[in-house]
């Protein structure tokens, strides 16, 4: 039981990162039906932006909380800048082109950003990340179930990010405009919504959340590396599809589901298919099962949102 609870905690921590990154995929997809495969790199850039802020910009002895806030801002600036340039110069010119064109562009952008960081940060990968939040500081969640400070921080910031985003999308004027654009872009324009601006907003919000996740990941693991976006990107995309791509709550639910499935598969899967190597296979089994019974994902809308 104790092991189960500890694994549940492990799964929630893992799922928090997936969910946070998945939001970026789902928002952009929801609005322009674009699978921005370079979104994983936006997450990676958030981590490096935070590292750069710490090592280059911050004076030694900056109080930890202030340093964390500034690192988050630094990470966001880098992530958002990259997302804006990507949207403007890689994707916007291809709007209306066959679906394959932006997909291939996304892969190209992805490789470009990885190499850019690799060359900008010449050191052997991975790069050590300052351990501002002590990983040996454990919080007890009852009966010897524990969570370390940076892992707890990851979950807390992820939940804050998710709640903030969903409140923004549901309540704010811009958020409503995002929903309208997702459901029917032409009609949204008839309402006076500048859909180009809304698309940019989706990229920006996704990048900001990815930067949160990139910083949390750096603090949690003590490293960032140029390749980190790939695996997390694939997992987060899977989470978005699992939850119903285009659906914001779905991305969060998909993220946690995926994280928990992976962890439980590591612990409990029957023997020849157990262990960390099979966890991804199990994650995909769950994905396929969900898609068989609910083709549009856990929370995806059955009705086509568009006429």
């Amino acid at each position, binding site marked *: 039981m104790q092991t189960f609870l500890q694994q549940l905690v492990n799964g929630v921590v893992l799922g928090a990162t997936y969910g946070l990154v998945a939001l970026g995929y789902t928002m952009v997809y929801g609005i322009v039906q674009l699978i921005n495969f370079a979104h994983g790199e936006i997450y990676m850039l958030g981590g490096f932006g935070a590292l750069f802020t710490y090592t280059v910009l911050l004076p030694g002895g900056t109080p930890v909380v202030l340093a964390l806030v500034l690192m988050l801002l630094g990470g966001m600036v880098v992530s958002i800048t990259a997302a804006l340039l990507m949207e403007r110069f890689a994707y916007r010119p291809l709007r209306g082109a066959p679906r394959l064109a932006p997909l291939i562009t996304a892969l190209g952008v992805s490789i470009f950003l990885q190499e850019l960081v690799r060359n900008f940060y010449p050191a052997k990968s991975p790069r050590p990340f300052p351990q501002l939040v002590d990983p040996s500081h454990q919080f007890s969640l009852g009966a010897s179930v524990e969570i370390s400070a940076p892992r707890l921080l990851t979950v807390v910031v992820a939940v804050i990010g998710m709640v903030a985003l969903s409140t923004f999308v549901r309540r704010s*004027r811009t958020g*409503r*405009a995002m929903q309208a654009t997702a459901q*029917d872009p032409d*009609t949204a324009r*008839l309402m*006076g919504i500048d859909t180009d601006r809304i698309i940019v907003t989706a990229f920006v919000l996704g990048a900001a959340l990815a930067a949160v996740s990139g910083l949390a990941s750096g603090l949690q693991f003590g490293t960032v590396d140029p390749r980190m976006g790939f695996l997390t990107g694939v997992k987060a995309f899977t989470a978005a599809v699992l939850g119903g791509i285009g659906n914001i709550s779905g991305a969060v639910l998909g993220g946690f589901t995926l994280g928990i499935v992976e962890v439980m598969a590591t612990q409990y899967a029957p023997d020849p298919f157990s262990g960390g190597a099979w966890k991804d296979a199990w994650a995909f089994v769950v994905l396929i099962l969900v898609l068989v019974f609910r083709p549009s994902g856990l929370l995806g809308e059955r009705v086509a949102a568009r006429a």
Partner: protein
Amino acid sequence: MSMLEVRDLRVAYGAIEAIKGISLDVDEGQVVTLIGTNGAGKTTTLRTVSGLLRPVSGEILFDGQRLDTVKAHEIVKQGIAHSPEGRRIFPLMTVEENLELGAYTRKGDSIAKDVGAVFDRFPRLLERRAQKAGTLSGGEQQMLAIGRALMSSPRLLMLDEPSMGLSPIMIQLIFETIAELKSTGTTILLVEQNASAALALADVGYVLETGRVVLSGPGKELLKDENVRKAYLGED
């Protein structure tokens, strides 16, 4: 000067020309209707006025100002509301949220008051205010679409086939609504396949066929025209 002037408009989808040079006028306070068979180019005309499509040539003037270079999302600010074909309400948002989106370009307290006015006009919508719009019946969705268009306080209201797919009772209700809007002086550009009802109501009618205006004149006269009766009113 007419409120809306369309001059020699040509619109194409790729290589296929859908509008082959049409001209029409809508004067302040008038109801003008475009009738014609499926594929004649009525929807294309409205979408071009709204800026969703760009003309190949010709011009569109609103209050004498060029409209065909204004971005779609800015046209509603100039006072043109467009209730599109197929209603196109936002299905995953509530009735109330749909109405509020209609007032997206407006600011201030008067929005809540206008939402109330729409509910007064269509009490059915008030009952369903917190319901997802996608769950409404076709007639209710049409009420919502018209209500949403009214929310921008337009000077020109464009309605694309508001009676399409509705039950006879609903059709009647929709036309009553249009008549009521007309009586309060709202300028309306109405696209309809239900030619008799539309022409009965309209000050001016235009008959479109494959991208061209083939006939135009006061609504009552067109209603009497033999060709119109044969082609559009199902009489032999």
